């Protein structure tokens, strides 16, 4: 495992609030254990800053086990850092070398305004979900699950789409700050299952309209989102969303 502790230079984006301009600030860190997680390294930095009487770096985090989708650091030009299929909290300092300079920036998108330092406001995602990312269930007893047979492939694909934790790495890495991977995952997890069918074409139109209203960019199929997604959400979902959108607009007789 570890070979020895490291000395690092951090360049961290500091920004007081959404109204002021921010800048990268240099911090020297010594004696960092390679077994620390990236966020633990930030905890060490913040303790030092507090002891010196300075403002600690504000960053989002919650579960620290890669399932909540809160951590959101753009590390050396990549969301969640250099490793594939991990969130920032699952990234360890052993992925870096002694003497490295690490640049840490917040997600950058018009739809994700900076709240402070590395924390951005991702409530645009919540509003997209509220626009249609749900199924309407009437009250009554739940029917027996076996009454709704679902092909295994279909169930697996829905489950894979549902793995999206809504962290926003797709938006952060996309050259157009497009949210299509997120929105398509949230559409697909329901479009693939029988419970999602009644509202399927209504949903895709409402969620896409909300996505556009939030000011996200347009997809150009570079595939960066899929490559950087900590949950491995597939571009296939975007194609499915496009297909459903076309069906909704050109085939379905229901208008939203």
């Amino acid at each position, binding site marked *: 495992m570890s070979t020895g502790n490291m000395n690092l230079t951090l360049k961290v984006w500091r920004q007081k609030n959404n109204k002021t301009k921010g800048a990268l600030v240099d911090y020297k860190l010594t004696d960092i254990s390679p077994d620390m997680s990236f966020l633990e390294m930030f905890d060490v930095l913040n303790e030092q800053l507090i002891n010196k009487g300075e403002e600690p770096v504000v960053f989002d985090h919650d579960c620290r086990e890669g399932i909540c989708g809160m951590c959101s650091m753009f590390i050396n030009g990549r969301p969640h850092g250099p490793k594939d299929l991990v969130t920032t909290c699952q990234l360890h300092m052993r992925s870096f070398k002694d003497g490295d300079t690490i640049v840490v*920036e917040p997600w950058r998108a018009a739809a994700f305004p900076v709240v402070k330092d590395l924390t951005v406001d991702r409530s645009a995602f919540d509003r997209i979900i509220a626009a249609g990312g749900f199924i309407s269930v009437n009250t009554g007893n739940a029917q027996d699950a076996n009454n709704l047979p679902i092909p295994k492939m279909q169930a697996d694909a829905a489950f894979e789409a549902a793995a999206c934790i809504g962290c926003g790495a797709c938006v952060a890495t996309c050259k157009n700050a497009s949210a299509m991977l997120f929105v398509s995952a949230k559409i697909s997890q329901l479009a693939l299952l029988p419970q999602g069918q009644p509202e399927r074409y209504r949903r895709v139109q409402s969620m896409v309209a909300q996505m556009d209203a939030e000011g996200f960019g347009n997809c150009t199929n570079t595939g960066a989102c899929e490559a950087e997604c900590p949950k491995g959400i597939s571009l296939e979902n975007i*194609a499915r969303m496009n297909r459903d959108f076309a069906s909704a607009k050109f085939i379905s007789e229901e208008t939203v």
Partner: protein
Amino acid sequence: MSGFGNAFSSSIGKKFIMGITGLFLILFLIVHCGINALIFINDGGLTFNIGAHFMATNWIIRAGEIVLFIGLLAHIFQALRLTLQNQKARPVKYAVNNGNANSKWYSRSMGLLGTLLLIFLVVHLKDFWVVSRFTGIPTVDANGHEDLYAVMKEKFQDPVRLAVYILAMFSLCYHLLHGFASAFQTMGWNHSKYNGIIKGAGVWYSIIISILFAAMPIAVYFGLIQ
């Protein structure tokens, strides 16, 4: 408002226009390349001139030409609109952004490649389209057809023009390498049984069409054909 609502003004609708016009232009390139490749029959351009004469006089082709220009302009203007919108979606840029770690450079440079192609297209239309449609081709060949082949031979004596055409074909190749499969993805035509075929066809199409087009000015310049 009609039942189609914001079908074409939404983000996905705009992509549909890019995809469908892109596929249309891909089909056009096959026709264009196929007819031009008739120069490789090496009969002093007689067959090529028959093809050129047909393209210039057949009314279906002439009507198609109008559709082609509409498709091309739609592709260009939609790209411009989308690019401006996409830039607005990220007002503050990253200090460090390692794009090569997650995507191909040409997939992120479609605007640049497209702009190079547009500049080339102005030169190219002035070289041949304006001559054959407006200013007139000066000579006729043995069959009595306008000798477009002679125009081509004369134009490609210029090494600067040769370089411009070859560079443009590199832009075309990379533009298509991303554009071909990307258009299918945009239209939602993504299917595990066909994705491999689409990707493969896209790569082969891009390379073959670009090499064939580039081979024409090279062959004329170096006197490899009569």
